């Protein structure tokens, strides 16, 4: 018989080690489908690591992917801390991107130091307003925000398609559904010459630090943590759970909206309806792997980005589908959930009929 006994105190070291072990386990388990597909293991892993981290170009690609994942990861982490289940980071990302494109593709004629902050602010606001809907519905009518925030993703994506086919369609795009490009003054500058890494990475890292400070050092973070882990005690102590939740919803949506601005203004230049390969959903994995810690989000976003970039190059090298990346990331999530149980509980094996004398 297997029993789980709660540990009295779990160490800080274990809390850090668990996700690392989970990541390694997930990478190791990727060997099974690789073997089934008949790919040579050594070459596959080499291609994966090489493709993600092996050269300056590879590393730059990984960092480019890391940027939106940090922001969506932070969006999910702050919401989940308050037990606000925001599954809608994908939609909020598109809302942010849409706002940036509307204002940034010629509507405003301003120098860069005005236009870039304006676009960032607009994108953040759009994301925040979008997340305000499920949050308000939850607070006012107890509607499950998992459902509403998830379904809003599809609403937003269809709305983006409609705009791209209509008012926002670039007349020079030869019929492709894409928006006009962001003007030069609104573009986030590249960080490293001849790579796609852009200033969005700095913004994402700054946000991670800011969120860490907010969560651990401010009254806001204090209230978010209290409301998230014991809402009735927080209410009893005089905190307004409604205000805290609404605030969290707005911050969470704004962070995901920023991810969208970064993708259009830093990377693509224009908006298409396949701007994000699921950054919003991957943000959930990133946040969970990070144990909802803002600084941990940076590391786990880098890991998830590396797996995706590495799997792409592995797929080119040995001819296995790049879906292996999705699989690895999913296994990593499962492994970290199991790991979370093991850091909090200790497994005891007992023989069913063990004799005591």
């Amino acid at each position: 018989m297997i029993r789980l006994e709660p540990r009295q105190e779990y160490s800080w070291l274990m809390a850090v080690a668990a996700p690392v072990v989970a990541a390694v386990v997930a990478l190791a388990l990727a060997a099974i489908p690789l073997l089934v597909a008949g790919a040579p293991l050594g070459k596959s892993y080499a291609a994966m690591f090489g493709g993600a981290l092996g050269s300056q170009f590879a590393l730059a690609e990984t960092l480019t992917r890391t940027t939106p994942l940090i922001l969506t990861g932070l969006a999910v982490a702050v919401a989940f801390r308050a037990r606000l289940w925001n599954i809608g980071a994908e939609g909020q990302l598109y809302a942010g991107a849409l706002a940036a494109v509307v204002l940034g593709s010629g509507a405003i004629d301003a120098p860069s130091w005005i236009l870039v902050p304006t676009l960032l602010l607009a994108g953040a606001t759009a994301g925040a307003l979008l997340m305000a809907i499920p949050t308000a519905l939850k607070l006012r009518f107890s509607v499950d925000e998992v459902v509403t925030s998830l379904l809003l993703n599809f609403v937003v994506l269809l709305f983006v398609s409609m705009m791209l086919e209509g008012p926002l369609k670039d007349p020079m795009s030869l019929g492709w559904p894409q928006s006009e490009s962001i003007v030069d003054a609104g573009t986030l500058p590249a960080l490293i010459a001849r790579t796609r890494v852009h200033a969005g990475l700095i913004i994402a890292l700054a946000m991670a630090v800011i969120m860490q400070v907010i969560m651990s050092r401010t009254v806001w973070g204090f209230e978010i943590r209290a409301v998230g882990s014991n809402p009735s005690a927080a209410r009893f102590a005089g905190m307004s759970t409604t205000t805290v939740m609404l605030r969290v919803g707005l911050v969470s949506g704004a962070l995901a909206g920023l991810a969208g601005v970064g993708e259009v203004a830093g990377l693509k230049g224009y908006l298409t309806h396949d701007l994000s390969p699921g950054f919003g959903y991957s943000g959930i994995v990133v946040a969970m792997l990070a144990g909802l810690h803002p600084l941990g989000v940076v590391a786990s976003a880098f890991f998830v980005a590396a797996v995706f970039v590495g799997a792409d190059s592995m797929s080119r090298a040995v001819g296995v589908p790049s879906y292996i990346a999705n699989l690895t990331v999913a296994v990593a999530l499962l492994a970290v959930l199991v790991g979370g149980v093991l850091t909090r509980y200790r497994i005891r094996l007992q023989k069913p009929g063990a004799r005591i004398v």
Partner: protein
Amino acid sequence: MPELPAHNHAPFALSIAGVTKRFGPLVANDAISLDLRRGEILALLGENGAGKTTLMSVLFGHYLADEGAIFVADGEGSLAPLPPGSPKAALAAGIGMVHQHFTLADNLSVLDNITLGTESLWQFWKNDRTAMARLKELQRTSGLHVDLDARVGRLSVGERQRVEILKALYRGARILILDEPTAVLTPQESDALFATLKRLTATGLSVIFISHKLNEVLAVADRVAVLRGGRKVAEIDAKSANRALLAETMVGTAVQPSVRRAHEPGATIIELKDVRAPDPRGRQALESASFAIRAGEILGIAGVAGNGQSALAALVCGLVAPTEGSVSIQGETVSRFSPRDLMQSGIGRIPEDRHHDGVVGTMKLWENLALEDIRSSECQQAGLLRRGALKDRARAAIKTFDVRGGGPETEARLLSGGNMQKVILARVLDREPRVILANQPTRGLDVGAVSFVHQRLLDARAKGAAILLMSEDLDELLALSDRVGVMYRGTLSTIRPAGEMTVRRLGLLMAGQNADLGDAA
């Protein structure tokens, strides 16, 4: 009272031989040996954490003992070893347990609750008629009367407890374990339970009665086993025991009674006039309450759970607003009801459920101590926490209120109930509130912690606080209060001086009967 002749020589029903149970470095049960005879009521007395529940969990197969064995008498009376770690085997051997928190399905009938789990899954039709007949017979012999067709959700707490006992008997229990059975009963219901137990033991049932209430133990038990710190420290014949002896054995040192000095109360601090209010779930629960508490006065409120006390407490906490009537504090009518508004008007609140409302388990002690005034300038500056100052404040509070088991950086969930309560007391009393609501302030605490809490409340009274005390422990209520009132069906009775009240009179009022001072026994 009926008693088996020479029950001291009755055959053994149960023998616990040298049971030791360790949890890591903690020894919860240290080589405990205990015998139970047929037809005997054995009280298991001890403070929280003394090892009572662990021992019973070992007996019932929820835990595996590290050492020792358990023997149970079979139908013929010869002792056979009980297979360890198997609740099924314990049930089959005739051990029945009635937990403190009942395990009944509210939406099923009494009959269904009792037969639940006793019939084969492969059987198509329930054999209700046979079950009914057996239960009627059981009720006749035991005196456990309750309508078998009634839905459990509509029964009173006392009736539910009877259902639990019937359930155990129906499954053939020869040994009945009752875990703190009177915690939820009025004194009269407790007396009825004791009478039932006497009647059942006369038919040969053996009972283990877990309690930390001395009066009850003396009233019902034949023999008392006292546990302290995981060891059995004494086994006393109930006839030769008294309260003081039991208390001292249980705690290990002589217990100092709290000092309560008579003094003349001051001006009225808080006044409620004809207040009606819903409980936090929105049901109209408080029908009518009027009272005034003066400075330096403790008003005690008694009542069986579910008679409107929770609505009264929620109102004073600021969790609900009154639908009628008025609340005033120092002459000013309270117009806005929220926890923050009421705290600002000078009310300190000790919540009924300290895990649920009192502390945030995953937050540290310094954070929990700052939970209520985190927005004050003492705690923050421009939205940034003054962590250093808060930790210093926590260190001081931990020292003054003698919180053991951790420092400012310890997570609150790791504290014992008593120490958690001290953290809440520190948070509430440090600000010297003019009004204190103490709702079940000593529930689940051991004797040492109880006297600490009592002394702190009396100190606050001496300093001029107006205290509203709600407690299920009537001895506590009468010992601390200046005046007492009883809640029944949402209405607060006439408030009387505590000196004119007895536990018995309170019990009658709690049951809704008129306890006119003249004809009370």
